[in-house]
């Protein structure tokens, strides 16, 4: 039987990344949907960068930043006694950055697809912009939010490059399932590699199936 910790680590990492990104992406997407200036463009580039950069590049620079021999890493270690390189915390930060576009883009496109009269109607009824966001805008882009959550979760499960660069391969701490597959193959242990790989396929198929199934249900009631 295979060691189950990599599977739990993978699920924990995906779960935490999704929660953090959900709360981070809503204000970012809202801000992007409201602005048209040069800062919007810059932010869009930064948010989308993980889509085009090789994960090893992001991993490499994060590793440098987290390293205690560089200023940011030294600062964290001296003042907070935190060492992010080769730790689960570092892995989490890397995942958040790497999966950022998968959470921001669906929410952003949901927000911009809503007619502007919806927001104006809410404002003219005496509601603040925040009330409008939570009571009117977000409830009417449920399919986009669901897509964002599921894609982020699934994408974090499939992560490899970033995780390998900043997590190393410490059993029980940073050895997630995708890395475990690689490890077992390196050790010519094809049976165990196959078990981890089957788990990854199973969970990915289940997640995507649930996404398309529930989005179909949601779209049936949506006419906008």
């Amino acid at each position, binding site marked *: 039987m295979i060691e189950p910790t990599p599977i739990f680590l993978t699920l924990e990492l995906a779960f935490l990344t999704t929660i953090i990104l959900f709360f981070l992406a809503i204000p970012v997407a809202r801000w992007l949907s409201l602005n048209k200036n040069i800062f919007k463009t810059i932010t869009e580039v930064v948010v989308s960068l993980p889509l085009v950069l090789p994960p090893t590049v992001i991993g490499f620079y994060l590793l440098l930043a987290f390293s205690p021999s560089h200023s940011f890493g030294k600062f964290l270690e001296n003042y907070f006694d935190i060492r992010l390189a080769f730790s689960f915390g570092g892995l989490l930060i890397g995942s958040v950055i790497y999966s950022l576009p998968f959470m921001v883009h669906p929410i952003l496109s949901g927000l911009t697809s809503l007619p502007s009269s919806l927001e104006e*109607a809410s*404002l*003219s009824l005496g509601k603040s912009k925040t009330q409008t966001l939570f*009571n*009117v805008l977000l409830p009417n882009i449920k399919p986009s939010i669901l897509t964002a959550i599921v894609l982020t979760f699934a994408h974090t499960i499939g992560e490899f490059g970033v995780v390998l660069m900043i997590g190393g391969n410490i059993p029980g701490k940073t050895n997630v399932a995708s890395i475990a597959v690689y490890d077992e193959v390196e050790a010519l242990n094809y049976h165990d590699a196959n078990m981890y790989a089957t788990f990854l396929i199973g969970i990915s198929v289940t997640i995507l199936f649930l996404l398309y199934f529930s989005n179909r249900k949601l779209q049936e*009631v*949506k006419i906008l």
Partner: protein
Amino acid sequence: MTHFSLQKMLHAADGPLKLNVNCDIEDGAFISLYGPSGAGKTSLLRMLAGFMKPDNGMIKVNDEVWFDSENKINLVSQKRVVGFVFQDYALFPNMNVEENILYALTKNDSKKIIEELLELTALTGLRNKKIQMLSGGQQQRVALARALARRPKLLLLDEPLSAIDNEMRSNLQQTLLSIHSHYKVTSIIVSHDINEIVKLTSKTIHLQNGIIERYAPSSEIFSDQSGKINSLKGFFLSVEKNEINYVAVILVGQQLVKINCDEEDTRNLQKGDEIEISFKGAPAFFRKL
């Protein structure tokens, strides 16, 4: 009294346009905003609602200043107590009929007005219906009820009936009239429909190229036009010959009209040509436009 004097550079499809308007509206009046597309009607309405910031000027409603460029006052929409009815209804699809109207109220407001509004707009039986289940006319009733729930000081209607079919439209015009006489809220409606304007409103602002061409009683503005021309515009369809003379079939508005005519007039007309029918002589005289 509602007073506004506003200036704003607009960037319309056919180049820049300077909107420069100045107007006083008596309390409780129902007035219309009439003019060609691109004259600045919707922009004016949006500035009154606080959706668009004027370059210069002042908006004062019942002695309350909503906008004053000199003193840097610009109340946001939520502070203006304004009701806005959109052409696309802008109802919240995640709420049912009653919830849409309730949304306008704050926690401490009495819910009594909801019953009254549902009654006035004939929506009581539909209160728990999803917005998606309603017809266009019903949706616009909900939008109207919602806009009135806060008891606005100014009700702004941006072509509210233009997407609604004829029968439902005259029904809704009745609702608008009874609501206006019930709440006496100062209302401004943007409309292209002369029939609607004359039926609903006492005065009309005729906006053209960003300035107020005329501000006068609605019946006066439109009777002047029809008195002078003494003619109708329509589309030529065909010409028929009966025992005595020729009869032209013409589409005027939504109606087919048969008019005795001179066969010569119709010779160079083709089906679908836009024509003007003059009633100055008999038989009617046609001129190709």
